[in-house]
């Protein structure tokens, strides 16, 4: 009996991990059929979920809200899975403007999608929200990194093989000079930095970052200071698998907030058909544990099963 209670508690405890365990819940309905005393004992035993006002039993409102999120993890991932990738990206970008998701989601989408995919997302955005994503980002986000963000979403980078190596070397030098002479707060608004990061092709930028490392003896990320937007931009362009594996890791950390947890769904859904193998390898190398093991340990129910299938386990 104690075991049953425990496992039902766990099944309902979504907020401790990710998702609820629908199978166990359904099994309990069968087991405890016509046994109101069992349910009554369960309620008094589960003080996080249930409480009393005088002699009247009630659910904790807080818990109900959290439970709503946990029950809908599976629904969300299913809907997202079926949705067209362009619509997904458009909605995620819209959330940044209107639901205060972190701006890094925009950096992620603008820098890790191909030029065609980003165009598709922008068209979907216009169809869904009657504004262009550029105008919304420019209008709603008034931070030091706005210019960089607008530049990133407006980009339509060349995707061919040609790289002007001399120009890449020159720009690596130029970036070095700017970094030396700017205060680290001012770097994010520097015209040259924005120009180079938002207009050059990804191949060109990878070459530029490589030259930077050779010239200055360290990767450019180390010289960008605490500038989150710049760091994420460079990472997404240069080493997207590393970026994604770190985003997943943040989701699993103790005390991770709601948007961080949602990034687990977002990363896995958006990369399942793209570079999931690479992300798994990177994750294993970086954090010393297999991604499938982290998911199995921390998530529950159909949500967990879906994640495991998507990562190819």
């Amino acid at each position, binding site marked *: 009996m104690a075991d049953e209670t425990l496992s039902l508690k766990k099944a309902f405890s979504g907020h401790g991990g990710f998702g609820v365990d629908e199978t166990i819940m359904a099994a309990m309905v069968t087991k405890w059929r016509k046994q109101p005393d069992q349910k009554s004992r369960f309620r008094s035993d589960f003080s996080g979920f249930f409480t009393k006002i005088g002699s009247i039993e009630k659910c904790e409102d807080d818990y109900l809200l959290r439970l709503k999120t946990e029950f809908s993890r599976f629904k969300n991932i299913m809907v997202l899975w079926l949705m067209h990738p362009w619509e997904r990206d458009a909605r995620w970008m819209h959330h940044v403007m209107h639901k205060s998701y972190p701006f890094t989601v925009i950096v992620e989408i603008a820098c890790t999608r191909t030029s065609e995919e980003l165009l598709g997302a922008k068209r979907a955005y216009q169809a869904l929200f*009657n504004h*262009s994503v550029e105008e919304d980002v420019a209008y709603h986000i008034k931070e030091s990194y706005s210019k960089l963000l*607008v530049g990133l979403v*407006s*980009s*339509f980078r060349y995707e061919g093989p040609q790289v002007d190596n001399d120009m890449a070397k020159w720009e690596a030098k130029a970036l070095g000079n700017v970094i030396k002479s700017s205060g680290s707060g001012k770097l994010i608004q520097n015209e040259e930095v924005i120009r180079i990061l*938002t*207009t050059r*092709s990804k191949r060109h930028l990878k070459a530029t970052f490589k030259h930077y490392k050779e010239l200055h003896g360290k990767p450019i990320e180390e010289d960008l200071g605490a500038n989150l937007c710049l760091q994420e931009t460079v990472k997404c362009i240069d080493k997207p698998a590393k970026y994604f594996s770190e985003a997943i890791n943040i989701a699993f950390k103790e005390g991770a907030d709601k948007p961080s947890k949602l990034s687990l769904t977002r990363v896995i859904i958006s990369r399942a058909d793209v570079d999931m193998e690479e992300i798994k390898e990177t994750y294993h190398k970086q954090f010393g544990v297999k991604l499938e093991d982290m998911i199995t340990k921390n998530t529950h129910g159909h949500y967990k099963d879906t994640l495991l299938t998507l990562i190819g386990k």
Partner: protein
Amino acid sequence: MATLRVPPAVPSPQEDCEQLHKAFEGWGTNEKLIISVLAHRNAAQRKAIRDAYQATYGKDLLESLLHETHGDFEKIVLLWTLEPSERDALLANEAATKWHPANRVLIEIACARSSQDLFTVRCAYHKQYKRSLEEDVAAHTKADFRKLLLPLVSAYRYEGEEVNMHLAKSEAKLLHDKISDKAYSDEEVIRVLTTRSKPQLIATFNQYNNEFGNPINKDLKSDPKDDYLAALRAVVRLICCPEKYFEKVIRLSLNKIGTDETALTRIVATRAEVDLKLIKEVYQSRNSVPLENAVKHDTHRHYEDMLLALLGSDQN
């Protein structure tokens, strides 16, 4: 709105390309034959002719045109024969790599094309130049001009008709405040001009006029010699009434001692299938003579014939 005249019964691309080949054969070139074909085919038909020519004679029609025609006629025929997106990419590349402050071709392309067309130009640019248009504009322009031009050429404006009047009012006020402070390259000015949809901007400019008693371009004329202000005025004009903008460029190009054929060629070739008819009407009402007369007066021979054909005024 277009002035291009295509005959009701169009020969097949194969027939057309054979005619053109005949025009190139032997000594000299039959320019009249070239005009009678190319100046009376739309973009899709010209593409079909180019493909047929390549398949039949093993080379690009443009190459033959380059060899067999000269001077201003050559320039207009080449520009005309290109697909609109290739043409704009060529013009944009010239404008970006040889940029100077009085050059407003990039603004023409960025503001007088639909969002979708501008995007097609950016694609054509990738193909042709193995770089993005934005890279080249960013790399070759400086200071305030870059601040304006880069977001302009990267714009992908919403194309719906909806207008938010509340926003139009507040952004009209914003523009007025910045202009009064002479903060012409302020980020907010750039933001409004380069990200809002065209219907939204038109509503904003109307609000500006209603609220402050002056059209916004009047307030942007504080220094008539300032190229940056001229660029801003061009943006406003091209968004609101491109035909007026183009009429002025044509008028100025014809008024010069010696004509500015580059501008004339560019505008006739790029607007013949769009709104050259409207531009002609504006020209007539502004100058009291038909545009064709001015063209006949100031240009000659095959260049003149090609212009007249594209203006819809030849005998064919």
